[in-house]
């Protein structure tokens, strides 16, 4: 790998709607995205030189589900293939690295998840410490509640701020055909709802979703051949913090700030930011960590509060940001993905249009 990275762009995207329950298989969700992308770009499956997927077998409770998922990508002809048991934003990061090796120019990234068959609040404790957290059934909703309280106690946010994030996200989602929860609900009405994991109310949580997304990455002139306006990846970085919430300041996100610095967020104005706000208080933490001001439009898609196809949710943030650039609606965008409770691990990607 040379010291100057090869220019890589997002040249095509596809996503399924977020479904509360998709009554068919995960490979079929993936297949719809892949077929859509091939049809719209005119690419042949054999021109996708590397494919990588992000998914989680625990979600649908099917051992080796990630192998069946290759049916959806297209098992034939054989291809260099990889998988991460992480949100597919990290699969995109691996695809970007793979393209840096210089021998191939086009890669396909897939993210997919079906949360509907399982019980997410019982599945996700398995990603916590197996000695001191998982046996307590310590779930991400409870941990998000603890983070929310820390923000309130520190005077950084109010419950009204949380409700405003929800109200705006789900109102914006009304123009997103793939959104699952899209409605205009006034803040005061939200604040009248009972607590679920106080200080969080149910609407502060993401919906349970099934869905998939796909992104094609291409290098240099190959990208310009495939797309009229590629969304160039100008920086991408990801950082992680301790898995012990007690060792972190939950009112900030150090790893997001580090990843933002690594990706070069502050080097120019940010027109649009698509942030993986699974719980409404996270938007407040992320805006501060990324240094975004009111000039940046945050989550015009509605974000994860409008649709949360786990393992694709982070990739969808990158996809939505890229779509804004390819459509000419934005020149410079930031996409963020997160993994682990209370924003434990964060990926930041800066995208730009040309000219």
């Amino acid at each position, binding site marked *: 790998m040379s010291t100057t990275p090869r220019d890589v762009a997002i040249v095509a995207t596809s996503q399924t709607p977020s479904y509360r*329950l998709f*009554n*068919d*298989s995960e*490979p*079929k969700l993936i*297949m*719809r995205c*892949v*077929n859509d992308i091939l049809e719209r770009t005119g690419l042949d*499956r054999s021109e996708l030189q590397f494919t990588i997927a992000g998914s989680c077998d*625990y979600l*649908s*409770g*099917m*051992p080796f589900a990630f192998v*069946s998922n290759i*049916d*959806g990508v*297209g*098992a*034939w002809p054989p291809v260099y293939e990889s998988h991460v048991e992480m949100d597919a934003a990290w699969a995109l990061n691996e695809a970007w690295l793979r393209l840096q090796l210089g021998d191939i120019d086009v890669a396909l990234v897939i993210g997919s998840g079906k949360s*509907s*068959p*399982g*019980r997410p*609040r*019982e*599945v996700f404790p*398995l990603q916590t410490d*197996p*000695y*001191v*957290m*998982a*046996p*307590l*059934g*310590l*779930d991400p909703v*409870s*941990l*998000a*509640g*603890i*983070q*929310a*309280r*820390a923000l309130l*106690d520190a005077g950084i946010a109010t419950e009204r701020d949380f409700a405003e994030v929800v109200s705006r996200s789900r109102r914006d989602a009304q123009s997103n055909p793939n959104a699952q929860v899209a409605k205009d609900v006034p803040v005061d009405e939200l604040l009248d709802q009972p*607590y*679920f*994991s*106080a200080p*969080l109310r149910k609407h502060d949580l993401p919906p349970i979703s099934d869905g998939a997304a796909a992104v094609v990455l291409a290098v240099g002139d190959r990208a310009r051949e495939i797309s009229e306006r590629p969304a160039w990846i100008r920086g991408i970085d990801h950082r992680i913090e*301790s898995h*012990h919430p*007690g*060792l972190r300041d*939950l009112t900030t996100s150090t790893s997001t700030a580090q990843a933002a610095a690594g990706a070069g967020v502050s080097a120019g104005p940010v027109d649009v930011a698509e942030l993986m706000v699974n719980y409404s208080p996270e938007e407040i933490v992320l805006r501060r960590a990324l240094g975004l001001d009111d000039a940046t439009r945050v989550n015009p898609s509605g974000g994860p509060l409008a649709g949360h196809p786990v393992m694709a949710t982070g990739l969808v943030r990158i996809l939505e940001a890229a779509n804004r650039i390819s459509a000419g609606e934005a020149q410079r965008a930031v996409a963020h993905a997160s993994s682990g409770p209370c924003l434990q691990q964060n990926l930041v990607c800066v995208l730009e249009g040309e000219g």
Partner: protein
Amino acid sequence: MTLEFPYTRTTGPVVGPFLTALRDGKILGGRCGDRVLCPPLEYEPETGAALEPDFVEVGPGGVVRSWTWVAEPTPKHPFDSPFAFALIQLDGADTPFVHAVDAGSIDAMSTGMRVAAQFREEREGAITDVYFVPEASATAQEVTPGDEPVRITTHLVALTISEPLYPHRVRFAEGLLKGRIIGQRSPVSGKVYVPSSGYDNLSRAEMTEADDVEVADRGSVSSFTVITPIQYYGQKETEPYIRASILLDGADSPIIGVDVRNIPVDEFRVGLRLQAIWKPPGDRDVSELGNRFGGAWEGVLERWEPTGEPDADPRPLQEFAF
């Protein structure tokens, strides 16, 4: 359906003494420079540098640094009725950790409140041996220490999964109840898949009800294995048994994992012709049929019986091993 994953983990030099102390009614922190971390760690959290185990008893009282009220506990939570998860900084510790507070009501909770540890009657050397209550309602406890140090922990992960049968699986199940085996013919390749996954994985073509076809309930053994059961967690078998792949007449993919008990192992072979013997219609049961692998043949068939026909040529069957 419930999937179980029985995890067994060694505890190591720091978690082991921490869990042993919990079983014995004490909570340990670990020194890290001039700080005390609770729970204790094997490494310095900022640098990852190894820490020599250096324990100090902390608690049993402490302060709530943040908390949430769990209005609807899951079956995996420590309490059936609403409780708080809280970041608790124990007296003598510099870092908080998350644990459960049985406070009775959200009104009893506040940031900065004092809580105290209570140990459960039955303890096994696990984080669940302890819980917390508002300090004023804590009761004095006499905890009898155990014998051996805790070197192993077991954690049975059980995930409950439920989903409706996919549309093509519903039609497959309805066919079985009528004594018919329904597959699907790819509109692209013409190949017949049984049972169908609802798509052709070579051409990435989705299939619909219009692609349904019936295949024969007889065919040729295309592959098999004789399984000698190992007694792992959840194993129900004790005697060797056959699992076979059978290429049904009219199909281009074999049915796999077919349970065969009635044919002696030394008479079983690739190419052997078999006929399905159905249970009487009223006895057929497809309740075990899910969206996953296999066809739940055992619920609808008595057995597979040799037809007495000459064997099929085994060579082309190599393509249909799995």
